[in-house]
């Protein structure tokens, strides 16, 4: 009945739900620095992190590794787990904004850089502060707009 939640392969892609949220805190900080300093190299680093998160999963990004090595051992052993697909989706959206921002920066369009980084920062901040689920709010709307 709940085929989209209970596919057998889904069981293998469960991760500690606190990991992506910790990652969002670092992402928020990094993007805030990029926005304030207008530094495209900071954004490039964040874009690489987003790319790893989007392709392999957030648990494999440097932020995910910091969480696993230094933060997780200090937290409660009982970890809330979650499907890796929602945070992966959010990383993909972040990657798109970061790429748009980089194109803007390297072509001299500072406004494009500021707006794109602003949106990525907003999403990361919402995730960090309010546990915002980007996939819940944007995916269906996107589908509704893009498919006939």
């Amino acid at each position, binding site marked *: 009945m709940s085929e989209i939640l209970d596919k057998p392969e889904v069981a293998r892609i469960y991760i500690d739900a606190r990991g992506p949220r910790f990652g969002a805190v670092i992402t928020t900080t990094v993007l805030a620095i990029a926005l*304030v300093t207008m530094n495209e190299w900071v954004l490039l680093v964040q874009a690489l992190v987003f790319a790893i998160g989007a392709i392999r999963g957030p648990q494999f990004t440097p932020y995910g590794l910091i969480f696993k090595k230094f933060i997780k051992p200090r937290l409660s052993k009982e970890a809330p787990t979650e499907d890796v697909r929602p945070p992966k989706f959010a990383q993909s959206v972040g990657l798109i904004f970061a790429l748009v921002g980089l194109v803007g920066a390297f072509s001299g369009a500072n406004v494009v850089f500021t707006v794109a980084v602003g949106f990525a920062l907003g999403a990361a*901040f919402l995730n960090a502060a309010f546990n915002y*689920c*980007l*996939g*819940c709010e944007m995916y269906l*709307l996107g589908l509704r707009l893009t498919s006939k």
Partner: protein
Amino acid sequence: MKTYLPLVIVLVIASAYGLWYQRSRGAIRTVKAVPGNRLGADVLGEALGSRATMVQFSSAFCAPCRATHTLLSQMVTAMEDVKHIHIDAESHLELVRQLDIRSTPTTLFLNSEGVEVGRAAGTPKREQVLAALNAI
């Protein structure tokens, strides 16, 4: 070159939106009911409950969909006259448009006639669900 203005703007807008988001997710609103719009087994794929039906729309990129599914399916096991129907939003886009489902999880509360009397975006609380069902 340093500028704090864009950062401040983003944080203010995101905080306002985040507070609204946190407050509105899970709340069961009754105002959305459209009396003429009846849902039945023909579109839902399953028969309605004899008193009430909760129709949950989910998608793959949605962490709270699982929590909602667990809560609702567990709640209806003790209720003979209430059903929980789970629908993959992505493969029912026409229905999603018709019912104006914008985010997942969205749960519709239907009466015995299949008329929507309430809906919740996000994971509702157990007491809220009980209250909504009792009102049907």
